[in-house]
């Protein structure tokens, strides 16, 4: 049997009366990429910190590689690469100097690792540039290179792609896939729902609880009770307003020249078209489409 790279077992954290994380349980297996989603303040970072042994849980247990984090020493930490939301880079040091510093901190003796890490993240051209002068996308890549320097078997990345453009984001994910193919496990929080589609499994935190955890494609079926539709009509903004108070509709939003709508349970696309036509809207057209992870997220978050 495979030993999970990380296991959260009913992890709970209370701050006074406030329960930041409430009985969160999941396994993260080697080679698996788990996306961790949730609104700000829903307990994502607190969960990560408990998992890493940086914060003591009020109840429950965190395990890394089959061993309780609480008992873990330096050798456990050696197997984990952590990238926090505020990346720990020294602005006045160059990219290469920052990595050399990481190497020292993690006891990496092989001096070739710094050059190798720069190459792996395509950072060689900026090796001599001060971290403070790097655009945000490059900074984040440098921070990831730092987290990878000591060859960890588990990556914990807290919003690693915040403020990073789609092109750099893809380069970022290519690297994470390459590592996962080598058996590295990754736990990644993100606000980009299209990124969550890249993950093998996705967990959604709402108010401290892990409300759902599954493969993206399965979440779309289990978490949504109604169908997803794209809706066109002559007066699109007026139509949107009408749908806002329509019992047939769970949620409606603007999507360019048309609307993206989640129906109430049991309502079909024909029902909606007839309803809109009865309300006097003209040139109404609607088709059923594949729901997005944003639809899932907003449904679970209760808007």
């Amino acid at each position, binding site marked *: 049997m495979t030993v999970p790279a990380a296991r959260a077992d009913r992890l709970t954290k209370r701050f006074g009366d406030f329960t930041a994380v409430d009985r969160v349980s999941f396994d993260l297996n080697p080679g698996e990429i788990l996306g961790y989603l949730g609104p*700000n303040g829903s307990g994502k970072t607190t969960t990560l910190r408990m998992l890493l042994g940086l914060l003591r849980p009020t109840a429950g247990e965190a395990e890394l590689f089959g061993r309780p984090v609480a008992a873990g020493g330096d050798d456990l930490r050696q197997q984990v690469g952590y990238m926090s939301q505020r990346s720990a880079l020294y602005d006045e040091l160059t990219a290469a100097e920052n990595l050399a510093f990481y190497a020292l901190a993690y006891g990496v003796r092989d001096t070739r690792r710094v050059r190798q890490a720069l190459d792996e993240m395509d950072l060689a*051209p900026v090796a001599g540039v001060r971290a403070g002068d790097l655009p945000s996308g490059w900074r984040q890549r440098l921070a990831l290179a730092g987290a990878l320097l000591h060859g960890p078997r588990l990556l914990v990345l807290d919003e690693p792609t915040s403020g990073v453009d789609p092109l750099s984001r893809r380069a970022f994910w290519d690297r994470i896939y390459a590592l996962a193919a080598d058996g590295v496990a990754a736990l990644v929080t993100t606000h980009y729902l299209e990124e969550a589609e890249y993950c093998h499994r996705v967990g959604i935190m709402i108010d401290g609880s892990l409300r759902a955890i599954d493969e993206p494609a399965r979440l779309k079926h289990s978490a949504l009770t109604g169908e997803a539709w794209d809706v066109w009509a002559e007066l699109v903004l007026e139509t949107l307003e009408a749908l806002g108070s329509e019992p047939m509709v769970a949620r409606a939003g*603007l999507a360019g020249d048309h609307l993206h709508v989640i129906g109430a349970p049991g309502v079909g696309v024909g029902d909606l078209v007839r309803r809109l036509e009865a309300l006097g809207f003209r040139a109404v057209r609607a088709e059923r489409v594949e729901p997005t992870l944003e639809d899932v997220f907003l449904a679970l978050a209760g808007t």
Partner: protein
Amino acid sequence: MSAIVASHLARAFGPTRALVDFSLSVERGEMVALLGPDGAGKSTALRLLAGVLRADSGRATVDGLDVARQAEAARARLGYVPQRFSLYGDLTALENLRFLADVRGLAGVAWRERAEAMLRFVGLEAFGHRRAQALSGGMRQKLALAAALIHQPRVLLLDEPTGGVDPLARQSFWKLLTRLLRQEVAILVSTPYLDEAERCHRVAFLHRGRLLVQGTPDELRRPLADRMIEVRGGAPDRRLEVTQDLGGVEERQIFGATLRLRVAAGRVHEVVAEVARRAAAYGATDVAVRLVPPSLEDVFHYLLAAEPLPRAA
């Protein structure tokens, strides 16, 4: 005349040509997204239109007023939310709005009514006396929007207004923008979120200071219609195996439990058939292949595939 008109705008910073021959217009009640990699010129374009940065050449107008030559009058018609939060953290929400109302020349008692109306509009009426620095990220962005709207502008320029904001807060921010569209405000917004660009009427795509392409999201996706294939099911190695060295495939990308392929125009059926044939030959009956509609992210990578990113140095 369009509410926002950029006509051959150009701006360099030293040797760097941040924006080159940029022309774009936005109508009343229309929302246009500015997309592009970091350093593509999005912020420069917005700053030139807002009149906070002077163009080397070209012309910009808002509501028919030249932002350089009729700066004061133009500024009265536009609201601008810069990328970095620019309100005072140690002032309350209302104090910030009062300060801006003063700057905007909203004299006397008028500011209070207007400020409270704007706080209600963005849903922060309960937070008027809270210091800006004590608001959450999403609430701060809403306050910045309220501040930009204090003088009832007809044009709104937003520079990545939802960066780092969670999906729930982004959703409610976009609902506000939709309401402004109903009031015939023209909106130009830069964003790193492609799902947000999907919600705009049109998308303008910048790269290395140049406008590469503009159109509705559907128009931008059209060149990739019938060219995106998804392979799912089976083990990851098997998915790679059945798509290895396929003729006609321009790009192959892993997406979690699926592989996404971009295929040369006109070759999609041939490629689908070949993948299915290989899957059968290898006994990988659980591998499925299908044609999928292109996303704006596919478009983004397709547009940039021709030229690699410039090196930062």
